[in-house]
């Protein structure tokens, strides 16, 4: 069975970067796939990779990660409006997918399409 857990942005917005990452990684380590509203900051993404590497062991092989983000607006007025919204309510745009590498084999991303390829081995072994 494949479990997807949705995390709305308001569930993580008040957390510090470290706690945010710990929460996401904790869910992934329970063999669930996280669908998070919004995206992490670039520095949080690298911290997530660092923490993941620290946790790699016989059972946990790492993560697959993918962020989907709308194409930036070219109009200056819209850009300013979007920047202000981001400043006021946080980066809620887009979607972040994080899953355990034992379940997700690969996330293929083209600009407008995402394909999530799973390991049959990983799925068959789960209750």
């Amino acid at each position, binding site marked *: 069975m494949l479990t997807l857990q949705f995390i709305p942005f308001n569930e993580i917005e008040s957390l510090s970067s470290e706690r945010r990452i710990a929460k996401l990684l904790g869910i992934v380590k329970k063999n669930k796939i996280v669908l998070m509203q919004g995206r992490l900051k670039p520095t949080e*993404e690298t911290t997530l990779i660092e923490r993941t590497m*620290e946790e790699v062991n016989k059972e946990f092989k790492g*993560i697959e*990660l993918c*962020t989907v983000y709308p194409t930036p607006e070219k109009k200056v007025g819209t850009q300013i409006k979007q920047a202000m919204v981001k400043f006021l309510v946080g980066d809620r745009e887009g979607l972040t997918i994080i899953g355990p*590498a034992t379940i997700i084999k690969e996330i293929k991303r083209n600009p407008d399409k995402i394909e999530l390829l799973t390991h049959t081995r990983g799925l068959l072994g789960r209750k």
Partner: protein
Amino acid sequence: MMNRLKTLLNKIIPGLFGKRKHMKIGLYGPPNAGKTTLANRICRDWLGEDVVMGTASEIPHETREIQMKENIHLKKKGKEITFNLIDTPGIATKIDYEEFLKHKMNKKVAKERAKEATKGVIEAIKWLDNMDCVVVVLDSTTNPYSQVNITIIGNLAARNIPVLIAANKTDLKKANVKSIEAAFPQYPIVGISAELGTNIDELYETLTKLVR
């Protein structure tokens, strides 16, 4: 925070906080993109035929520790830069020792390699803050829209570190530099074959323009 501010100010006004040491140019990218092959090419071109940075191999995570060569003087079309070149372990989000078993390694060696590789990834990320400029080496035969590529480049942009993308392996049939240009249109991109030295002069020229 203070260190970042110092770094930024030092980039704007060199020597503000003491004498500026040689700039550090890092080679970053996913595993097997050809970072060490490019590092070896740069070393041979500017430090001497017999100087190499490390061993390049088809097995992922061959480089598992930061490697550095100091005092490289690069001269192109009247422009000159002196820098320390840093070759970093490939950045990955997953490491499975079983992948190494496919390369005829025994279980013990494969597990040890996986353990070292995880440390290498952490070390590479920690070194990001020390870089003055980064050459992101991408394999032009693979899909550029991988999260690792996006994360590395996004981090460099967030840290205000100049970026040059080397679209490597152009000697291979499947190479597609245009797909990298489409994925990262805001960065200078040079298609190269680090293995054969193809277009390497253009890479040097672009690098001298970028860091001056």
